[in-house]
Each structure stands twice: as structure tokens, then as C-alpha cells.
């Protein structure tokens, strides 16, 4: 048997004490397309980053064409013939296609004379081999997404890559574009290269992959030949575990409809015909894969990207939400996913962050009453058990979990009717996580309507009263708490 192109053996990697990769083992042969699948957070990207040298593993070994890789960084990885193509092509938009290819391939000093003719000719050849009819002189910013991906592939061909890693390459492609991409992949494979193919689209994987490796919770679970598996088997392999009982259960006492969407569309962000409702006292889980439009939906409800058509009703009354300020006035709160950049202002103390969305409550005619502000912030410091010496502690000095609680405090202080939480427990420690869950349940018990976006299925399944699953900008289905299982959610999310 031939030497495998690439082998990863028992690779582990922890980030700040969290095990992202517990046991990553993987093998790629010449002339095969090997798919790598798993839920969000299963460890796929971490494994890929180890291969491309973007991160250093804590233990385990990487073997390329029979040679143990002692030391790795992106340059070494590239020189070993490993090329990665990400979902978002990483090209320079203001340079021409030929220049982009040349930057990746040409060596030499910065003062060397550029042979433009040779550069364009070479780019043309590589593009042809990639099956692309793109003029080398065109600016990358004028190319469509699939064209940009073809340029990336041309770069990989030019680098004489033997190992091509493709991370969700079809996420932004139409069916026809997918077909032509697959043709190019076929050409690559026939030349003896190996392709690691990451995708959430299971039907695609069962079409193109020769073998499939499933990851779960940082471990590679199994590798199967395509003929041996079907979609339901793959899904159950990806899920594979019972829901932990650490999540609190709660009884829903849902009341009147607090928020209702009717046929909401947003062409710019790709939301199509969204109809949904949340009741007072209810937690609606919004599940779906990364890129399925969950955050876009939250931003539309919050007025950041107002809807083009359809209706939004609050407590049965049609409303227009054209800006965050209007949303806040209407009693809609939004704790965004990117806590550090959007959720809180790190440079400001806790007190200022708490009142930022609701300065009216602590001021009269624009004049801030410092005593009142301190009192309000102190109240939430106690209620949310934010661990800080005082309300004037800098928010940047707090831990992730406590920053998230500050973000939450800001929105609770507006006394919202509807609260949208985007990945509320992402990157927070276990202790803060269950505290945040308990808070959500308390708030719901108090009559608040909560929409929770989460990529963590066990969290969604245990906290939510109902679960809406998004798929490609649409609601794929809504499941009640009783009927929802990981399998059902995943198959709605992946079709």
C-alpha cells in the first residue's frame, strides 16, 4: 500500500483550558477526496489549523508523505505542498488576478524586476488548468465568489499542492457553480492529489467524497467509505450522545404572543419569508448552522438591517423597526454574539455599560444622575452576580462570563419585552454558563420573551421551549420541546 499523503495521529489542542481537540486522527491518501464532518465546535477547524501550521498542537504527531513534521508554520506547511482554501477567499481585492497568483508563488527579493508578460502567461496557464476562464488582468474585486475560489485553486495548482484543504467551499455557491467546482476537484484528484473536504452539506459529501471522517467533541469518531454510509447514519454519528443532564429543566408558562414575524424578507442579508412567533415567558431556540441566517434574523428584528418586506408585530401591533434606537424604544433588546466588539464597550466601566442603552432612565433632560446610575448598576451587579469590586471597574478587566453579564445587564435595564441573545454562552466558563442559563429561565418565568441563538445543540434542546431551525436564510422547521431531538434538528439544518 502506498504511503499516505498525510497522517495526523492523536493530536490534542487546548485553548485556555478548554479542550478543542482531544484526539484528532486522520489519514489522507493519494487521489482521494476525504470529507471531514461534524457539528459546529467538533474540532474540525482546529485539526485543519494544525495541518496548515496556523497553530501548534499540544501533543500528537503530523506525518506528511511518510516524514514526521517536527516543526510547522504556514510557510513550512506550504512548502510541504499543503494548500488551504477557506470559505471566504483570502485574496487582495485591489490587485489583479495575475498579481494575486504571483504573490503566492513568485520568490525573490523585493527589488527584483517583474516580468509582467511571464507573470500574466503563467497565471493564464494555471487558471486554465483550474478550469477557469478568467482574464489574468482582471481585478479580484470584480470577480464573483466562485471565480475567486477558482483563483485560489489556481494558486494551489501553481504551488504544486499535493494536499488541498477546502473549508466549506460551496457555502456561497449556486448549484451550477458547485457542479463546476466538483469537476475541478475531480481533475485535481486524478492528478494524484488528496483533497480534504469540509462541508455541512451532507448530500454534497455523499456525492463527492471517497471516504468520510466524522468528528465529535474534539475526537475523530470513525472513518467510513462512502458506500458504507447514508445520511441518517452520518447524522447519528455526528450527534452520538445523550443530552447531558446538567442543563436545568423548566416548565414553560407561555402567555400572549410577544413578537410575531410574518413573511419577513431581507434581500441584502438573504433572509427569505420568515414567519415566527415568541410568547411571553417562552424561550425560543434558534438553531442552524453557522451562516444559516440566524444572526441576520436577529439583526433584522433589532433594526440593524431593517426588513424589505413582511410584517413585525409586537404584542399584536404592527411596528416598524428601522434602527436599534427604535427597537430599544419598542422594548427589544439584543445581546450580540461578538461580546468584545459589539456587546460591551471595553474601555468603559461597568456602570457606564449598564446604562448606555438606557441613559434616559438615569438622567433628567440629558443630565446624568450619578447616584441613580450607581444604584442601577449596583442592582444588576447583585442580581446577575457580576464578580467585580465596584460598578466602576473597567469592563475590559472582567472575565468573559462577567462581560457577558454586563452586556445582559444593559439590556435588562431597558425592561425589554423581547430579548434576543446571540450565542450567550460562547467562550464563557462552565460556572458562568449555568448561571447565565438560570438567569434566562428566571427572566422567562418573569414573563420575558427570549430568542436564543446557539450553535450548541444540547444547550438549545434543554433550554428552549420551542426550537426554530434555520437553513439557508429560511425557517426549515419549528419543533416543540417534546419532539425535538438532536437528529431532527440536524436534519432540518442540513436538509
Amino acid at each position, binding site marked *: 500500500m502506498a504511503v499516505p499523503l498525510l497522517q495526523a495521529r492523536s493530536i490534542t489542542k487546548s485553548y485556555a483550558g478548554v479542550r478543542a481537540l482531544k484526539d484528532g486522527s486522520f489519514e489522507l491518501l493519494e487521489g482521494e477526496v476525504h470529507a471531514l464532518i461534524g457539528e459546529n465546535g467538533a474540532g474540525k477547524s482546529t485539526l485543519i489549523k494544525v495541518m496548515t501550521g496556523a497553530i501548534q498542537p499540544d501533543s500528537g504527531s503530523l506525518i506528511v508523505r511518510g516524514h514526521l513534521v517536527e516543526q510547522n508554520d504556514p510557510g513550512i506547511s506550504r512548502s510541504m505542498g499543503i494548500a488551504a482554501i477557506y470559505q471566504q477567499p483570502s485574496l487582495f481585492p485591489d490587485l489583479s488576478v495575475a498579481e494575486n497568483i504571483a504573490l503566492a508563488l513568485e520568490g525573490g527579493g523585493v527589488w527584483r524586476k517583474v516580468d509582467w508578460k511571464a507573470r500574466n502567461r503563467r497565471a493564464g496557464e494555471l487558471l486554465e488548468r483550474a478550469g477557469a476562464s478568467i482574464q489574468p488582468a482582471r481585478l479580484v474585486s470584480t470577480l464573483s465568489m466562485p471565480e475567486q475560489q477558482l483563483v485560489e485553486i489556481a494558486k494551489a495548482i501553481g504551488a504544486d499542492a499535493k494536499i488541498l484543504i477546502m473549508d466549506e467551499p460551496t457555502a456561497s455557491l449556486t448549484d451550477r457553480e458547485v457542479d463546476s467546482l466538483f469537476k475541478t476537484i475531480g481533475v485535481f484528484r486524478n492528478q494524484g492529489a488528496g483533497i480534504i473536504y469540509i462541508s455541512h452539506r451532507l448530500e454534497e459529501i455523499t456525492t463527492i467524497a471517497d471516504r468520510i471522517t466524522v468528528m465529535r467533541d474534539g475526537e475523530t469518531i470513525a472513518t467510513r467509505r462512502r458506500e458504507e454510509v447514508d445520511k441518517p447514519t452520518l447524522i447519528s454519528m455526528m450527534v452520538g450522545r445523550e443530552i447531558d443532564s446538567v442543563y436545568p429543566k423548566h416548565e414553560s408558562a407561555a402567555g400572549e404572543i410577544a413578537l410575531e414575524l410574518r413573511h419577513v424578507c431581507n434581500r441584502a442579508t438573504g433572509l427569505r419569508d420568515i414567519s415566527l412567533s415568541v410568547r411571553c415567558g417562552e424561550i425560543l431556540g434558534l438553531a442552524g448552522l453557522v451562516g444559516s441566517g440566524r444572526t441576520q434574523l436577529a439583526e433584522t428584528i433589532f433594526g440593524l438591517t431593517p426588513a424589505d418586506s413582511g410584517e413585525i408585530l409586537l404584542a399584536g401591533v404592527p411596528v416598524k423597526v428601522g434602527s436599534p434606537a427604535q427597537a430599544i424604544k419598542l422594548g427589544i433588546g439584543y445581546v450580540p454574539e461578538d461580546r468584545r466588539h459589539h456587546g460591551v464597550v*471595553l474601555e*468603559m466601566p461597568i456602570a457606564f455599560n449598564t446604562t448606555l442603552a438606557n441613559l434616559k432612565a438615569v438622567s433628567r433632560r440629558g443630565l446624568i444622575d450619578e447616584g441613580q446610575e450607581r444604584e442601577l448598576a449596583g442592582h444588576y451587579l447583585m442580581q446577575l452576580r457580576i464578580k467585580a469590586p465596584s460598578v466602576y471597574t473597567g469592563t475590559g*478587566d472582567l472575565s468573559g462570563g462577567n462581560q457577558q453579564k454586563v452586556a445582559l445587564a444593559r439590556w435588562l435595564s431597558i425592561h425589554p419585552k423581547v430579548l434576543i441573545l446571540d450565542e450567550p454562552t460562547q467562550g464563557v466558563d462552565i460556572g458562568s454558563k449555568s448561571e447565565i442559563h438560570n438567569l434566562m429561565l428566571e427572566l422567562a418565568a418573569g414573563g420575558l420573551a427570549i430568542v436564543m441563538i446557539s450553535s450548541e445543540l444540547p444547550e438549545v434542546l434543554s433550554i428552549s421551549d420551542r426550537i426554530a431551525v434555520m437553513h439557508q436564510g429560511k425557517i426549515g422547521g419549528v419543533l416543540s420541546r417534546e419532539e425535538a431531538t438532536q437528529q431532527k434538528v440536524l436534519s432540518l439544518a442540513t436538509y
Partner: protein
Amino acid sequence: MKTHTREISVALAILALAIVLAFAAPGYFSRENLTDLFLANVPVLIVALGMTLVILIGQIDISVGSIFAICGVAAGLLSKSGLPALVAALGACLAGALLGALNGTLVAYLRIPSIVVTLASMVALRDALRWQTQGAWVQDLPRDFQWFGLSQSAYPLAVAGIAVILSAGLAWILRNLAIGRAIYATGSNKEGARLAGIHTTFVTFSVFAVIGGLTGFSAALNSVRFNQIPTNAGLGLEMKVIAAVVVGGAAITGGRGSVLGTVLGVVLLGAIGPALTFLGVSAYWERAVQGAIILAALVIDAVRTRHGRSLATSHV
């Protein structure tokens, strides 16, 4: 929550300069010299107050020198047309605010970077003024325009009062009003502020209108000191003002800075130039020394942020 490291170090620098001068050139502290220095620097201070706001929201305005020239000429022409001095001053403020609002519209609503917007308006306004006036200074000003109709001795007192009221007022606004909080939030984290429901575009627009208005006022205040109003006034004013704000501890990226810092920055940079002459150093060194002070301030900043990046200390 508040650290005054920068304010204290600038104050100490001023003190050190004063001590050196007290021994080496006591003539510096003559009444005439100090009055002159003070009157020459109040207009800089007033524009610097506006610039503090602009830099706090993470923007820049380099058109203030040109706006200053236009508003000075406007005040003179209004006064010559027979209007009382106070009305002429108000007219200058209004003209400045309108020009600032134009900058603000382009920056806030059309989202053009402020450095290019104000670079364009700096050049366009300066040359429009030159073309309109053919370079001729405004002369034969009415008697009551001089010293605002006050006496030559009452004028400095009035100016001192204005400087104190404006500085203290702005410091109070930034600290106690919701709009102050909105300005700091916009500069620290524009997207975060928008998500908290703050109208960041309106904040940006208003700040540019305000610096325009303050520049107009500053120009009116300055023009009454002389018999004629030059059309090339305010050349290089933007640099003086930005330098003072930066030396005063404001982060050029926004979100951090204080009125007190700006006041001290104006004092230090305004005092150091003439001090060199008094100390017998050639006046040609003046700008080099000022440049060195600015560089020192920036280096201190860079070193401090590098050490304390993860701490994200608050300077609100």
C-alpha cells in the same frame, strides 16, 4: 475609574518650564508678555476644545485653519456693513457651524473618511476665500468692532472669562450629560455604541458642526485685536490644535481624552515657543521643540498601551 497620569505629567512639564524661566529669564513673567501670550492662545484653546470632541469620536478635522480665516473675514465684513460687533461675532459662529456641518454631513452620512473630507475643505475653502477677496485684507473696521467695544483693559478679562466658561462647560457636559457619554462610546466602539441605540451618525455630524461654530467664535474673538483682518489667518492652526489635544492625552483613535488635558496641552505648547526666545535659543527651534514634545507624548502612549493592552484601563 479615572487616572490622570497624562494631565499630571503635562502639568509637571509646565511647572518645570516655569521654574527654568523664573531663574533664567524672569522677564518672561512680565505682565505684558503674559497677557500677549494669553490673548494669542485663547483662540487656539477654543478651537482645541472642539478638536477634543472630534478626536474623542475618533475623527479628525484639518479644515479649521481655513474655516478660521473665512469666519474672521465674515465677522469683519458684517461689522463693516453696520451691524453691531456682537451680531458680527454671532454671524461668524453661524458661518463656522454651517461649514462644519458640511464636513459633518460628508463624514457622518456619506461615510467619507474625515481626513480626506477636511483636507478637501481645507484647500477649497482657503482658495475660495483667496479668490473672493483677491487676497485683500479687511480694513477700515468700525471703531466699535475693536476690542468688541470694550476697553483694551477690559477685553482680556472678558476673554479670560470666556475661556474658563467654555472649558469648564465642556468638561461638565462630557462628564454629566448623556451626549457626553454618547461621544465617548462612539469613539471607543462605534459599532457597539450603535448597537446600544446611540445615533452615532448624528453624534458625528453634530461634533463637526460644533467645532465649526467654535472655530467661528474663536476667529471673531481674535480678529477684534487687530486693525485689519488678514485673509491668510489661521494657517497651520489645525496642527497647533491637534498637537495640543494629543499632548493632552487624547487617543487619536478615539474614546480617550479630557478637556483638562487639552487645556494643559495648549498651555505647554503655547508657552514653550516664546520661552525659547527668552532663553536665547533661536526662534527657528520653536517648531522642532514642539514636534519633539508631540513625539514624546505619542511614544509614551504607545509604550503604555503595549504594556497595558489586556488591561484596557479606563480614562473616561
